[in-house]
């Protein structure tokens, strides 16, 4: 959870690197495809995300399991729908997440190449590859490939490589840039 949030904030907050227009907010639908050698079939998830600069994020999965990750003013909360109601999960690694969040705040106004976490390399006009600087993170994510849309600040897809035979691809659609997003979206599931 924390890693995804971390990466998404990196991705969205860093879009000024490749965009002429400053990103104040982004929202889009996504389809996530999880591929692993061990799986006989890829796992598909669908959802929607909302991002508001500088550090607010709502990352919501509708299927197969309805869950919401909220980040707002440095606070991170996660909810999973059980028996028709959202239940907050408080157990897993929240302290570690706060550490990660502190690191994120150093990035938010910056250029992606300035981060101490990832090295960014522009492959071509629409593709950037992020490689973790630290071995600890590299054990979890070996690299991230961002494919950008021609329109500034928006992405077509993100591929997170966990290893050679394990990756998660997110394809975005219906993206809206710099539209008003109600503040409550980042506070309540």
């Amino acid at each position: 959870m924390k890693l995804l949030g971390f990466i998404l904030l990196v991705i969205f907050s860093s879009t000024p690197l490749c965009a002429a227009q400053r990103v104040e907010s982004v929202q889009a639908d996504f389809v996530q495809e999880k591929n692993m050698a061990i799986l006989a079939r890829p796992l598909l998830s669908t959802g929607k995300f909302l991002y508001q600069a500088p550090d607010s994020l709502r990352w919501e999965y509708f299927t197969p399991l309805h869950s919401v990750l909220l980040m707002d003013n440095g606070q991170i909360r996660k909810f999973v729908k059980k028996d028709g109601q959202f239940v907050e999960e408080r157990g897993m690694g929240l302290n570690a997440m706060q550490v990660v969040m502190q690191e994120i705040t150093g990035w938010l106004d910056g250029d992606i190449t300035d981060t101490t976490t990832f090295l960014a390399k522009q492959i071509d006009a629409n593709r950037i590859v992020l490689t973790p600087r630290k071995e600890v993170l590299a054990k979890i994510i070996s690299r991230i490939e961002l494919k950008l849309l021609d329109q500034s600040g928006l992405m077509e897809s993100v591929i997170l490589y966990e290893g050679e035979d394990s990756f998660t691809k997110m394809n975005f659609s219906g993206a809206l840039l710099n539209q008003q997003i109600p503040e409550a979206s980042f506070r309540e599931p």
Partner: protein
Amino acid sequence: MRIACLFVCCLFVSCSVAQVPSVPQLQRVSFVDTKEAICEYAFVQGNWQFVHSVSFVMDSGYGATLVGVTVLQGKKLKTVLMGVEGFVLFEAEQEGSGRVIVRRAMPPFDKTGFARGLMRDVQTLFVEPEYAERTLAENTEGELICRYTADNNQVTDVVMAQQGWNRINLYDTQGMLQQSITALNYKEVTGENIPERIQLTTSGTQGYTLKLQLLSAEKL
């Protein structure tokens, strides 16, 4: 008149007799076949990929919801635990010989014994136990039980209840209850009955409870 009444009565009686069902013909089956059929009903046959939401609660109160993937391929068991967002926290494979190969284990799933324990849980859930002896009997509540006794005298009882649920009780070699699994809300998928909800409770000082909700079941 009396003859007419008698005729009507006879007609009525004969009509009534015709409506009573006769004793149905039964097909003789061997006891062994019946036992096999009943006992194996609790376990899926063939190759499958299951995806569950897995909510676990430790005795300490610590808990979380993960996505668990189980792939059954012949004698091989593969399992993946990942966050709801898709990051793999644990990935392992158990060969037919019982050897466990851990491909990925992130904290806190990298603790000694976790992999073997998880694979044992998965095996208990989905695979019919190896046994030296299998018996079919009733308990005092009248529930049908398949009792699997292994070479080392470890007992696994599969309680076949009638109201759409089964329970698997795993005892250690001392006869103490080690694990209890309840499977509920069976639904048919590709001709097999698959439980939509499973609860696994492990006893002991590091006891925990796993609650699994079926997200998808696919025959391979």
